[in-house]
């Protein structure tokens, strides 16, 4: 749809402003996998309230906003094997690489971090190859 890119730009701007707020006020990098991972593996125990508060906002506000517009749709696959394999890969991969789309992508690229740029190149490349293999060759997704 034609308006998708406009909404993408506006939503992206909000994501960037969220990252800017977190950086300029709290002095922290807004990386979703690091904030969540530090909470579940115990490495972020010292600032757990801040992590929990960020995750609470990340969950509650889209919940309210989606309900207000009559619901939203993730269109997630119904294949449980794919869902579980993907979740494990995302969890392990982002923690091993110390970052995901928000940390390496948004926050890393914007400071011209070599690590962020390389990580982004690899996860986009791997995502693209996964689409070729599992959608076009094997027809699983």
């Amino acid at each position, binding site marked *: 749809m034609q308006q998708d890119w406009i909404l993408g730009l506006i*939503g992206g701007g909000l994501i960037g402003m969220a990252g800017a707020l977190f950086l300029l006020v709290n002095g922290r990098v807004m990386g*979703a996998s690091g904030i969540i991972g530090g909470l579940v593996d115990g490495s972020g125990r010292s600032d757990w309230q801040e992590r929990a508060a*960020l995750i609470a906002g990340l969950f509650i506000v889209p919940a309210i906003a989606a309900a207000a517009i009559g619901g939203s749709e993730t269109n997630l696959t119904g294949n449980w094997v794919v869902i579980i394999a993907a979740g494990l890969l995302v969890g392990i991969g982002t923690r091993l690489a110390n970052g995901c789309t928000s940390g390496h992508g948004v926050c890393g690229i914007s400071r011209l971090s070599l690590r962020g740029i390389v990580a982004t190149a690899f996860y986009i490349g791997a995502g693209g190859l996964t689409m070729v293999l599992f959608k076009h060759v094997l027809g699983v*997704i």
Partner: protein
Amino acid sequence: MRVVVSFLTGSLFGLGLLISGMTDTTKVQGWLDVFGDWDPTLAFVMGGAIIPMAIAWRFTIGRKPVLAAAFPTPPEPRIGRNLVIGSTLFGAGWGLAGLCPGPAIASLSYGGAGGLVFVIAMLTGMVLTPGLRVRFDRALPAT
């Protein structure tokens, strides 16, 4: 106060993810699927997010955060094995389901049972990673 700012950060982040369409897995997979019906939305989201963030990084030069002692120092510019392998594994999972950590949490309320199972699997992977990393480093010492 830092807790309030953290909540506001998560709120803006989540709202941005919903508005941009990034909690819709077909938009993410559509962007990764260059040989299918390619969807450019994700590039606009990334661009829209990187611009304010780049300005914020410029602003940190010679200043201090409002509620912290110092800004985060840049990590060593070392491209380690874990960065490359981890990002590759992450990308494979991202392609398979079309979800990454932020949108997975943001869409929990409307993502159904599948979204919940994805988050449980992701958290399990995150809990397992420190142990896996130790074994991995022992088997293949980093150069």
